[in-house]
Structures are given as structure tokens and as C-alpha cells.
């Protein structure tokens, strides 16, 4: 990717204490840290240094964090991890729909931050989508349109397959309900969220060891679903 062996991350947050703590955490985790204290500076820094990942606080003093995200997405696909306050559920969904790769709710632990950051970076580095995706005892063969569980073929309906394929393509990443509904039913299908729950229930029953406590097809509180590989 570039000559620098260590990945660079840009932190856009207005709180100096958070920036300091993030710097300590991230540097100990093997990142080179740049930071910006507001949205405008953040945008110009992002253009200047071309970081490998961006951590963006949604509550910024000058520009709305969502606006910063939209402007970033106009020219770059650099993975973005957004930080939100807990009382803004809707904001998370908007950020994910606007192209954020993952989110963390404040307050969060340093370990979790590093894990998420590595995960989105890893995904960004994968250039070609593999033909076969494996998680747990499940094997998903895209060219053959076949899903196997412990070697046995599992029969999926076309909607179930489409749902699974969408999550597998974005494995590790939250896919919002709205994104899934658009993919499966087209742009005006927001009322189908109920069906989505039913298909997910069926998928879990077919693919999970304990469908009541799913390990791979996980739910993100009121936001969407995520396919977890490990």
C-alpha cells in the first residue's frame, strides 16, 4: 500500500483529553496517530496525509460529524470508525448508511477500539472478494450458490440466501436494516422489517448451533445485523 510499515490513523475529535488518550492507546496498538480538533481541519488532514483509517467523533463543534463523513465519502473509501453518544441511536444508523464502517458508543474500552479498528482495516485490505467464505462450521460457496454446514448442503430460500450473501460480503461489519431491506426488496420496502426478522430467524435455525443465542449472525441493538467470522 505505502512505504510506511506502520498504518496511520487520523483521529477527528474536539476533546483534547480524548485525543490524548486515543493517541496513547493507538500508539501502543501499533498505529501512527494524527489528530484534528474539528471537522474542517479533519477533512484537510485526511486529504493531506491519506491515512489508512479514520476515527471520527460525530459531535463536532463546527461541522456535523455526518456531514464530515459524507464529504469524506465523496472522494475516499478509507475505513471510518465513528464514535457516538449513547442517546443518539438514530445517529448511528445514519452514519452507517452514510458509509461509516463501524461505530463505537462512548464510553468504550481501548481494547475494543483496537479490535474494531483492526477488523475494518483488514476488510479494507482485502482486494478481491473470495469465492468461498467460511465461518464456524459454515461454508458459503458463492459461484455455486451453495451453503454447507459441516459439509452437508443446507437448503436456503432465495431471500435467505440473498440475506446471508449480503452479510457475508460485509462480514465483520454492521449492515443496517435499511441497507438490507433495499438490497432484498428495493428502495421502498421499509415496511418489510418484520419479514426480515422472520428470515433471520430461519437462517439462525438453519445455521447456528444455538439459534437462541446466535454466535455468527449477531444482532446490533435496533440497528442491523453483523456476520461474525470467529
Amino acid at each position, binding site marked *: 500500500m505505502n512505504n510506511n510499515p506502520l498504518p496511520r490513523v487520523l483521529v477527528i475529535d474536539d476533546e483534547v483529553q480524548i485525543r490524548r488518550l486515543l493517541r496513547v492507546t493507538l500508539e501502543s496498538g501499533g498505529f501512527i496517530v494524527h489528530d484534528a480538533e474539528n471537522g474542517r481541519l479533519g477533512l484537510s488532514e485526511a486529504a493531506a496525509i491519506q491515512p489508512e483509517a479514520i476515527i471520527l467523533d460525530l459531535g463536532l463543534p463546527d461541522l456535523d460529524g455526518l456531514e464530515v463523513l459524507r464529504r469524506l465519502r465523496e472522494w475516499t473509501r478509507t475505513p471510518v470508525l465513528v464514535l457516538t453518544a*449513547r442517546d443518539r*441511536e*438514530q445517529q448511528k444508523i445514519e452514519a452507517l448508511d452514510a458509509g461509516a464502517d463501524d461505530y463505537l458508543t462512548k*464510553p468504550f474500552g481501548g481494547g475494543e477500539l483496537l479490535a474494531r479498528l483492526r477488523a475494518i482495516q483488514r476488510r479494507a485490505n482485502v482486494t478481491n472478494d473470495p469465492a468461498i467464505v467460511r465461518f464456524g462450521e459454515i461454508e458459503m460457496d458463492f459461484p455455486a450458490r451453495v451453503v454447507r454446514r459441516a459439509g452437508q448442503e443446507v437448503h436456503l430460500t432465495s431471500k435467505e440466501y440473498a440475506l446471508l450473501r449480503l452479510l457475508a460480503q460485509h462480514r465483520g461489519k454492521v449492515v443496517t436494516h435499511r441497507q438490507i431491506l433495499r438490497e432484498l426488496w428495493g428502495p421502498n420496502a421499509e415496511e418489510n422489517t418484520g419479514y426480515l426478522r*422472520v428470515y*433471520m*430467524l430461519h437462517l439462525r435455525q438453519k445455521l447456528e448451533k444455538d439459534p437462541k443465542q446466535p454466535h455468527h449472525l449477531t*444482532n446490533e441493538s*435496533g440497528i442491523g445485523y453483523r456476520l461474525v467470522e470467529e
Partner: protein
Amino acid sequence: MDAPLHRPDPDAILARLRADESRAKRGHLKVFLGMCPGVGKTYSMLRNGRKERTDGTDVLIGVVETHGRVETQALLDEMPIQPRKEISYKNAVLKEMDLEGILAKKPALVLVDELAHTNAPGSRHAKRWQDVIELIEAGLDVFTTVNIQHIESRSDAVRQITGAPVQETVPDSIFELADEIELVDLTPEALRERLSEGKVYLGERAATAQENFFKEAHLDALRELALRFTAERVDRQVRDRRTGDAKRVVWHSGQRLLVAVGPSPFSTQLVRRTRRMSDFAGAPWLAVHVETSRTLTPEAQRLLDKNLALARELGAEVVITHDDDLAAALVRVALEHNATQIVVGKPRGNRWMDLIKGGSLVDRLVRMGGDIDIYMVPAEESKKRRMQMPELSWANPREYLLALAVVLAVTVVGFALTKYIGYRSVGCLYLLTVIGLGLRIGRWPVLFAGLLSAVLWNYLFIPPVFTFLIGSLDDAMLYISTVVVALVTGQLTSRIRAQSRNERLREERATALFQLSRALGAAKTLDDAVFAALRQADDLFSAETALAFIDENTGDLAPHFASSFALDNKETGVADWSFHNRRVAGRFTDTLPANAGYYVPLLSEDKAVGVLGVKVPSEGTLTLAQRDLLEGFAHQLAHIIERDHLRAASERERILAESEKLHHTLLESVSHELRTPLAVITSVSENLPNADSGLREILLGELQTAVRRLNRLVRNLLDQTRLESGTLKPLLDWADAHDVINAAVDATKDALAGRQLMVQIPDDMPPVRVDFALTEQALINLLLNAANHTPAGTPVAISAGIEQGGRQAFFVVADKGPGFPSAMRDRFFKKFVRGENARAGGLGLGLSLVQGFITAQGGEVLISDEPGGGARIMLHLPHTPLQNPPAE
């Protein structure tokens, strides 16, 4: 009448306080009252004004007539005078008081001479007293002068004394606004002396009239009148102060007067008379006009308008109704409005008509009125001769033409048929024709048709023909009886028709108001109500309508978006005037009549909440009945707007009170709940550098607990604030109960460490429609409560399901702790209801948040005992089953 005055009525005191409030904003009005010209009113006013000026008041002379008197002229020296405004009218230039100029200067005190003056056409108001009202309502103090003969209710008496007609009058209601009345008194001898010295200006009046006016006997009578008028006011002021009564708001007696008003000059007198009676009795009064099927001449209509306007000015409630039977209508209105006395003029009608109608008006009133007292006021003889009752037009000339044409046509037919049916049957044809006409045309044209038929039948058909003689006795009998039957039946059918028309009109009015109130009642929001009312008014008055309110942000009058009548600057000016002066204005009125719109203020109690404007096409008009109906509309709208304001105000108060309560709770508990973890963090950070690895482990554990506690506290406070502020809007979406419970369990796994957690969800649990985040948070709170309030190591159970019947989904959190003390359970529920919280962070805030989260989604929280000990909290949420997905 004095009986109820012993103990002040609290309502009355309240009313006075309100009147005081509006008086506080209003300017002070002082009236210098004289018995006749020449007593020195202007002189007194100017002296008082000069004194105020030396005391430092900002005095401005609005208008003063010195009539060249030297002493008076001298008082004007060095006084600031507002130049008069020139108004050109019919090639002449008239000089009038510059009202706008004075309002712009905003002096503290304005001197305005001759209150009864009539302004030149084209001025803002027709009368100077209207200018004065505007000045005091703008907060300016006013001194003014007036003679007793110009006071509306006294002008008749003055004319009776002096014989001189009074042209310009001032309504009595302006004296209700006066804070002070100063009688400028002079003995008749002194006045006559001044007169002989030429010090009295008498205007354009002829010298003979002067002599008559200033006769000593007359002067005595006028003086007495002026003294009595002043004394009455003083008496009332004293009474007002004693009872705490702003006279027009609360009446002392259970009496209520009703006066019948018609299009006659005599009615004017009746109205004034009734006003005096009502004043004396301290009773409210109604002026009732009964519209009959007869059409009034424009002259009569004008006089009627004037009489009703006078009644309104004198403080009457005006009621207009439709009926051909005057007595029945008056009794009906009297009963509807609980009137105790009816005032009518002494009958002038002839005895023959009385006989037909079944007695004179008074007789019939007495008979039908039951308990209602009937007062009869005699008309003055002299007046009756001078002022004839204005002529009523005898219905439409077209109806006569129609009657003539039909009768002639029947005559032709009769001529053709007489050979076959005989001349007697032709009489029947005429009879049928007259009855038929009665169904279509008025009484007088029917009478005309009847008489014409009688003449034609006799002359053309009854032998000997072509004479007015009747040959046989048989024919004579037949002729007379047929004619009588025709005349009577024609009259009766015509009257029935008129009555049904009146009833229809009454019905229409009642229906219009009923529909309005129903539409207003059905409207969910104020905007809906206004929209419904305006559309209905558009139809009813065939006009464009507008409604304007005060914009809360700008403080200006802004038209409602549903208005169909777009107000330009000029129209807004009139609407504004009507709003601020709480009086009708614009077209058809005395105030700014050159404008296109007619404006009715929406009055609620003593303040205006908006203005209703109506623009009828320029050739159209608003009948009295329509204006009355419009006022009915305005009244209902005002009521609905006021109700909306009150509701908004009480809602604001409620939110304020709740948030105050919350603030109080926060202050109390936050200090404790925040300081504890903060103390832990401080202590840990101090001890950490010197701690060995074992202690370090313990300290870090404490640190984490403290931070979690802080985190939870902040989260709860934020949630509580969102709930209280009403900004929390649930986002209902389908959710898998497993996901909800897993999320809650995941979030509390640290707090529940070391406990057995039993999760129970039926296999066929369908998706439920809830707000995921709120439900998850409610469960987290319940699980944390269980962790905090039960002994370590005891199990906790969480389950979900659908109630039998499938209408409700439930989540249950149960523990094996001590349970809720039964004595406290009621208080928990009370807390929920009130949203009160005993202590933050603990049970109080936690459970009240659960309650808030669940009720926001339309659910409820139930607390019970777990069998075998422990608490059991059940969250009920409304449930509708999900349709099965379409087959693929």
C-alpha cells in the same frame, strides 16, 4: 338590591382586579362636565392642564376652542399645541384634531375640547369621542369637556326641558371609562350675567333659541340634571369600591331588561330609556330586533342600524330574530335570555289591526309573558307629530304585477269557459287563484289580487254583466261569501308562507352556529378549527374571510394561513385597530369605513385574541342578521382560541412543574450518587503508585465498579431528562425477543457475574413490534436492579412470551431476593404516576425509567411477588401478529 352587597363576592373582586389591570394600561380620563355652554369648562380644563404642566407633566393640547374669549386665550400661552390636520371635503378644507400626530408624539396628557364634536368625513373616526377612546387606550391621559345635553341618555330630557333639538351626542359608555368627572358648576344667575356680558359662545344658534335655552327655569333644570348625573357616577364609584365590582362585568340583581327595537325614531327614545332603567336597577339589558317578512326601505334600514348601534354603544346585548309575530318573538327571546322585564312603546297601531291579531302588542305580551313584567313607555305627543313612522315599502312591485297578470289570465280563461261551467264556477276559479297566489307572494299583493278578482267577477260575469249590480239574492250571498273566503284564505296562506320563511331563517342561523360548533368540536388542532370555521364563513356570507392572530414571536398581527382574504397593509391596519380597540371596524362601520373588509374582534373575557375579517363583493352587503351571525362566529372562535391558549399554558406549566421537581430530585441525589464513585476514583488514583501488585488488582477492580456506576448514573439522568422533556419518541420496529434479551444480558453480564441467569423464551416466539433500544434499556435497568437489591449469588430469571389471546407481548424479570415490601408497593406505583423519584441511581430512578420507556410504547409495568419470595416485574407491550412473509 342591596342585600347581596353586604359581603363582597369573590368573583366580583376578581372582576374588579381584572378591570384594574386593563385600566392600568389605559390612560386616565377626566371629563369636565357642564350644564350648558358658557359655564367655563374649557377654562377649567386649561387651568388644570397648566397646573399639570407646572408639575412637570408632558402636556399637549390636542384641540381647544376658545371662541375668542380673552381669559381662555390667555391660558394657551406657552402651551404646546398639536397643529390641526386639514381635511378637504367637497371643495372645503376642514380642520380636525390630528389624532395620528398626537399618538406619534405620545405626550403624557392630551387636552381635547368638545367631546361631542363630529369629525369631518374622511377622518379615522366619525366622532371625536372615538378619538378620545383611542387616545386613552393607547395609554395617554386625556382631559375633555362635554355638556350634559350631549350625553346620550340625557339628551331626550334636555330636549324636553329646552325644546331645542340635540344634534351631537356621546354614548354613556364613555363615562364608564372616565376615572374622574368634574362638574363645572355655575349658578344660573351668574351664567345669565356672563351671557349678557357676551362671554358665552352659542355657535350658529338663532338668537331666539338662545333666549329660550337660557331661561332661568331651564337653567335650573339643566343644572339639576348635570348635578344628578355626576352624583350618580360618584355613587356608583363608591359602590364599586365597596363591592369590588367593575359594573359591566358583574350585575347586582337577578334582573335583566329587554327592549324591543324597531326602525322608528321612537325606538331611539325607548333604547335610552331602557338604558337608564338598567343603570338604575344595576341590571344587564338586551335590545331585540324582530325581523319580519316585510322589506324595510333603505331609510328605515338606516334608522334601525342606528338604533341598534346606539343600543350596543349604551351597553346592550343585541339580539336579532325572525318572526312575523312580534309579541311571540319577544317572549321567546325573553325566555331564552332569562329577561325579567320587557320594555315596549305604547301601542300606536289602530284597533282594527289589534282585533285581527287578537289584541294589542301589550295585551298579547301580558298574556304570553307569564312572569315577565311588561313596561309600557308612552311616546311623546309632540314627537309623534313631528317624526312620522318611516314608511314601510309594501313589498315588491313585481308581486303586484304578477298578481295582476295572473288575475287577468284567469279572467280570460273564465271568459272562454263561462258558457260551459257557468258564472258561479268562475268565482271558484278566482278563489283558487287567490289562494294559490298566497303561496307565492306577500300579503298586500294577495289582498290586491283578491279585491281585483272580486271586482272583475262581479263586473264581467255575474248577471247583469258589465254592471256592478248583482241580480239575485242568491248571487249576492254567494258573491260576498266567496270574496270573504278568498281574502281571508289568501291572507292566511301568505302569512303561513312568511312564517315558514322566518322559521327557515332562524333554523338556518341555528344550523350555521350548530355546524360551526360541531366542526370546532371535531377539530383536533386549532389550525383544523380555524380552517373549518373560515370555509364555513366563506360559504355562509359568500365572501372572502381572514382570521388574524398575534404572532407569538413577532408580536404582530399575522393572518392565519387558511384565510381566503389576503390582507394588504391598509387592511391589516384596520384589523389591527379592531384588535387593539376591541371593536368592529372597517366597511359598514363608523371607523375606517373606506376599507374593503369588515372586521370583528374575537373577544374573550376582556381581551381580544384575534380578528375575523370579511370581504364581501363591493356591490354586496352584510345584512343585520348576517352581522349578528358573524359576531356569533367570532364569539365561538374566540372561545376555541382561548381554550387552546389555556391548554397550551397549562401544558407549559405542567412541564415546568415536572422539570422543577426533577431538578430538585437531581440536586438532592446527584450530590450523593456522583460523589461516591468520584471519591473512589480519587482514592484509587492516589494509592495506585505505591500499591503492590495484589493491592493494585483490588484497586483497579474498585475503579472499574466506580466508573460503571458513574456511567450508569449519567445514562439514567440523560434518559430521565429525555422522558421528562417529551423529546423521547419511540421508534417501533419488529424485533426478535431473543435479540432484545441477549443484548440486555450482554450489557449486564459484569453486574450479574456469579449468578445463575435463566432465560426462557418459547420456541414459537414471533417477532414483536417494539422500540428495540427502549425495551433493551428497560430490561437492563430491571436486571441491574435485581443485581443491586438481591443477595449475591441468588438466581435471576428473564423470560418473554405472548399473552393468551395474542394481544400483548410480555417480558418478565424475576429474582429470589426480599421482594417489594407490600407497604411500599403502593408508593412505587404512585411514584410512577407522578414520575417522582425518591433517589437517583437506585430503585427510584431505575423503575421510573422502566415505566417511562414502556408507557412511551403504549405498554404498562406490573409488579408482583414471585411465588416463594422475590420480586417479579412484568412489562406488557401491545402486540399484533406479523403477517407471514409472501411465499417465494
